[in-house]
Each structure stands twice: as C-alpha cells, then as structure tokens.
C-alpha cells in the first residue's frame, strides 16, 4: 500500500539505495572478469613484442628469460639489413590486395544489402541463405580448381587475382553485416526523403550512408583484416611478384637454426597496419559493433 503511494522517483531512489552494495559487488566481479579476459588476450601479443626485442639465443631459452638484454636485431633482419630481402614489396602487395578488395566489397555489399533490407526483393531470405551457403565450402576445397584456372588464364602470381578472391571471400559476410546495419535505418527518414522527392542516389548518400557509417566502417575493417591476414591462397597462388606479407612472414621460419625473435619482430611489424586501422576507426567501430548484427 505504501509502495503504491510513493512517487516513481522516490521508489527508484529506495530501490537503488537497497541494492547498491549488491550491485557494486557484482560490478566489481564483472570488472575483474573483464580485466582477466583482457589480460589473457593481450598477454600473447605482449609476449610477442618482448620476444621481438630479444636475441635469438635469449628468445629460445626454456624457461623463458624475461630480463634478457634488449636488441633490435630481429627488426634489422626483418627490414633486410645486410642484404636480406626487403619487406616493402610484400607489405605493398598486402595493402593493395586488402584496400582494393575492401573497396570492391563495400561497393557491392551496400547496394546488395539495400536490396535485402530497405527495399527487400522477393525471397530475400533465400538470397541471404545463398550468400551464407557460399561460406560453408571449406576454402581449401576450392584451392586446386582456382589454381588450375589461374594457371590457364595466366593470373598466377598476380595481385589482382588476390583482389578478386578476397572480394568474393569477404562479400557474403559483408552483405550480412551491412543488411543488419541498414535494417536500423528508420523507415520514417526514408519516407520523408521520398516525399521530398529524393531519388535513390540521394537517399543512399544523404540518408542511408550517414546513418549506417559506423556499420560501413565496421564492415570495412573486418574485410580489411580478413584480407590482410589471409595466408592459404596467397601462399599457393603467389610467388615472386605478388607475395603478401603473411607469406613473407613464414619465410623466417626455418627447420635449421633459431628464428623466434625474427618471426616475432616480423609479426609485430605486419600486425601494425591492422592495429592502426583499428585505432583509426575505433569510435565508428564501437558504434558499428553495438548496432545491428552483433548488438
């Protein structure tokens, strides 16, 4: 009876006062869990970073020596000091394959997603399933046919082959992601634009794009990361000219001699572009990932 006579504000205050210690405890527990998980994720990367500054002998010791003297030898070898292979051509190849395929993915995925969410075509759910089904075939199963086709059309060791492959590999995921993001665009806004006489290009550029920009950024980053890290196809389909940085990285692993510090230095350098892209798109990414598909 007394509760019924309370004002809503007073009820909220009483409820908050009553449960504050419990909530605080739960909050602390979740914070600790978040920190532990965070540290577990970051630890291997920190270990890689530390090892990259050790000498090969120190990097190979077991148990590992944390306090070994630091050196830049691993980085010098990665950058081809003393006549070694230069990392710049493979880095440029990776950048080309990743950026160009990401642009193509966005150019194709946004209109496709528009046709599947804002103005759904007939049997749009079947179309979505078809996109998803293309990811069900293990990539390695397509390797031999793709190799033979590439050989016949003289596209082996050509960076544009990777651009096409990465575009086709990332397109289904991008369409799925973009569809969920575009589904968040308020229908009222589209209707208002339509009443004002806006055509499709105007709607896409002035209504859809601003609202979906965080989603576009998230999709672009995912596509970029997948392309940048791809090894299987790059290893088989490239050689002298179009080798990408993951292929270059494996070149430091040898069955004779020590290589751990060199590989760690190379891995740090090759991870940097993805990290930079992630940090640059951080604010859009957080908005994007809290929207749509992964909400």
């Amino acid at each position, binding site marked *: 009876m007394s509760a019924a006579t309370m004002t809503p504000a007073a009820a909220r205050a009483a409820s908050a006062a009553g449960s504050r210690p419990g909530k605080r405890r739960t909050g602390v527990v979740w914070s600790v869990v978040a920190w532990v998980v965070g540290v577990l994720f970051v630890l291997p990367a920190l270990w890689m970073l530390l090892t990259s500054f050790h000498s090969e002998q120190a990097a190979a010791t*077991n148990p590992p020596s944390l306090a070994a003297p630091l050196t830049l030898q691993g980085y010098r070898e990665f950058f081809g000091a003393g006549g070694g292979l230069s990392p710049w051509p493979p880095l*440029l190849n990776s950048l080309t394959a990743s950026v160009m395929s990401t642009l193509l993915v966005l150019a194709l995925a946004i209109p496709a997603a528009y046709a599947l969410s804002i103005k759904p075509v007939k049997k749009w759910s079947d179309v979505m399933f078809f996109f998803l089904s293309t990811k069900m075939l293990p990539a390695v199963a397509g390797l031999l046919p793709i190799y033979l086709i590439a050989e016949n059309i003289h596209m082996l060791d050509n960076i544009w082959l990777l651009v096409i492959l990465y575009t086709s590999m990332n397109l289904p995921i991008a369409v799925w992601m973009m569809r969920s993001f575009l589904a968040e665009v308020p229908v009222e806004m589209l209707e208002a634009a339509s009443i004002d006489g806006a055509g499709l290009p105007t709607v896409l550029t002035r209504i859809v794009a601003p609202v979906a920009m965080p989603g576009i950024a998230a999709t672009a980053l995912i596509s970029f990361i997948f392309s940048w890290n791809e090894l299987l196809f790059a290893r088989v389909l490239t050689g*002298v000219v179009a080798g990408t940085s993951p292929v270059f990285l494996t070149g430091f692993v*040898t069955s004779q*001699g020590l290589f751990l510090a060199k590989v760690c230095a190379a891995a740090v350098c090759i991870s940097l572009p993805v990290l930079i892209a992630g940090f640059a798109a951080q604010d859009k990414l957080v908005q994007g990932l809290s929207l749509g598909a992964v909400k």
Partner: protein
Amino acid sequence: MTTSSSPPSRRRRPLRFARPAALVAVAGLLLSGCAGAGGDELGGGSGGHTINVLMVNNPQMVDLQKLTAEHFTKETGIRVNFTMLPEDDVRDKISQDFSSQAGEYDVATISNYEIPFYARNHWLVPLNPLAAKTPGYDQADVLAPIRKALTASDGNLYAEPFYGESSFLMYRKDIFQAKGLKMPAHPTWQQVATLAAEADGAKPGMKGICLRGEPGWGQMIAPLTTVVNTFGGTWFTKDWKAEVNSPAFTKATEFYVNLLKKHGEAGAAESGFTECLNDFEQSKVAMWYDATSAAGSLDGAGSPVAGKVGYVPAPVEQTKNSGWLYSWAFAMQKASTHQADAWKFISWATSKGYLNLAGKELGWSRVPPGTRNSLYTNPAYIKASAAFAGATQQALNSATPDNPGVQPRPATGIQFVGIPEFAALGDRVSQNLSSAIAGQTSVPSALNESQKLAAAVAAHYR
C-alpha cells in the same frame, strides 16, 4: 524551392562522405601502381636477364641470397629474384610449379629425395652436359656419394649440390670427462644407450641424449630409419613387400622409443632439429644424434658449448656405418625460358669460388659444407672447423644410399625411400610413433597400424 532553401550545411553533407571515399579510391589506385612497382623491384620474372629462384630458407641459403646481388649480379648482369620458404612449404611450392611445368621458377632447391622421380617425370634439365662445357667448374671435385645421390637412373646428373650433410653423434666432452665416461671411436647403439643412462643427470636437468621425436618424415623418421637400417630392418623388401612391423623394424623402433622415454630430452614427442639444438646448447642433454650440419652452430661463434663438443660416426649395430645422406641442390626446371642464365647462377652458387667467397665475406664457419672435396683441404676452412670437418667428411664419404642396410632395397635412399609416396607415408607413420613416444600407444600397435599404410603404398609398385 525546397532545395534552394536547404541550409548550406545540408548541401555539403554528401561531401563529408564523398571526400574520404574519393581519397580512399585514389589511394587504392596509387597502391595498385605501387604493387606493380613492388613487383618490378622484385624483378618481374620474365624479363631479359632475370631469373627466379625458389629456395629453402636454411641459413646457408640466406647467406647466398645476401651475396648474390653484390657479386653474381654485378659480374654477370643477371638479376636473381629469390623466394625463400620453410622446408615443407618449399617442397609444396616446387612440386606445384614443377609438376605443372608452370615455369614460374627457373631454378629451385631440391634434394636427393626428389631427384629419382622428378627426373623420371622429365621435369628437370640434365646438368652434366652443361657442367662439362663450363671451364673450371670441376665436377669431379664434388663428393662422390653426393654426386651419385643426385644422379638419376638414366645416368644424368640433375642437380648440383649447394649443401650436403650426413649424420653423426655429438657429445659433451667436458661432461664425459667429469663423469669418467669414454666415448668409443665407432660406437654401437647399445653402447650409446649405456652412456646415455650414465650421463643422465650429470648436471641438474641434463638428460642423456636428444633424438628427434617430432612427427614428420624429415624429422623423426630420418634418424629412426638409420637406426632401423643398422638393426637389420627395412621399409620395403626388394620385391615391394612392406616390412614395417617385421621383428627387425620393431626391435629398432622399440630401442629408439625406449631410449627416448628413459634418457631422452624433455618433451621428446615435440622435439625436432631446432629443439635438440637448443637443448644441446643449453646443456640439457649430454649427447645428440643428428645432422652433421649442426656442428657449425655448436662450434660457431657465440655458442655456449663451442670447444666442448666431440663428434663420432653414427652408431651402428649390424652395418659398418649408418649415417644418412642429404643434399639441398640446385635444379633447373625444364619449362624455364632462361636456361642459360639459370645455369650461370647454378654454376656460380655451387662452385669452389662461391665457397671461398662465403668464407672470406661471412666467415668459414658459415660456408655451406658437404659438397666439395677441395673444401676439406682448404687450410682456412680446416682451421675454422677443425673440431668437426674431418668427422663430417668421413660421415659423408661413408654413406651408401644404394645399400644402406643388410638387404637389397627397391629404391635408393638411406633415411628415406626414394618414392613420391614416402613423404606422406613417413608423416603418418611418424604420427603413430610420436603417440608411442608420448605413451599413448605401444610401439607394436603403432607399427601394426603403420604396416597397413606401407602395404597400400607397396601394392602400387608390385
């Protein structure tokens, strides 16, 4: 009317997205141009005096790559584009390129394992006529067993060796002295097992011996097969009957696995060449049976065990010697369109002159060993590698790839069987045996399982 009354900010709005998009597109186009430039920097591939070389990334090959531009390209004007990959990857890539005769690579490092079937499939250019026409190349200087191992059944030499190795037993002289142990000049495996038991625990955390236990035909199977050979076993009989669970093969494998379990390195089931090298350098094992090429690292500058290592021939039981024979050698793809330039590179990289160049520029301990007799009479090399040069040369010269055991064989090879199926067979058998080392199964059970695999391979050849 509506449009004209829109606020200026609304009009500019599309530009906020168009501008970055345009920038990204331009950057992409620029990048694609740069990637082309990257390709040019690497050399393209089909240009005039340019050849493409695919190599395993062993330290000696890395040295070769570093010396090429400064010397070979400067002298000949031929640019060399190197692709260097780990051993397994390079085998896959070479097999892929050579079997399809895609001709992407003019030259590649292949081993004496591949020579018989690559030659039979006509994927390679015979090099003996080219060597004979090259003044000063001195083909006769190449170690006879290596030359023989790179010669196919048609009598042609299909690859020139860049690096050769056998196997021997390495042991810590200081530890043996401290424990009052004596290493025989030609040890048997039973003697080695006894010494391993006595040296076990000589220092805190030190085990008796390091042997490869990591799965892989090029890892565990290599030393194990030499043990099988000298215990009287074989993978196949002359008429292609699988012998993997025969008494001799089983006895040898049980000996190997038990020695590893009792006195072998920690984590033996995951230890290959690199892990054993680390263990030996860090005084975690007193003995190590492995490739002769390890000696350069153990007695090289900066090694904590330099000067403390003794070298004796591979232990035996029923044979006079049991060391393996392996060579990374340069072969030319038949589909190469730059064969003259490719031969110039091969003949330079495998010449006496290159050995001298590497010795002078990089130090004699980094010279690729095991290919030419003249290296073992070179005073500078002898001085730098006094501890192991003699033992290495002896091991290489005593290797008998045609007759490595006590019975006739259907294919050449000491630590392998020279057929294309052996790589996959060896990998699968080694996985079974690695489980036995880890204690998950017994040796007879692992070998019975492996026998079925070997029998299926043998059936193809009967």
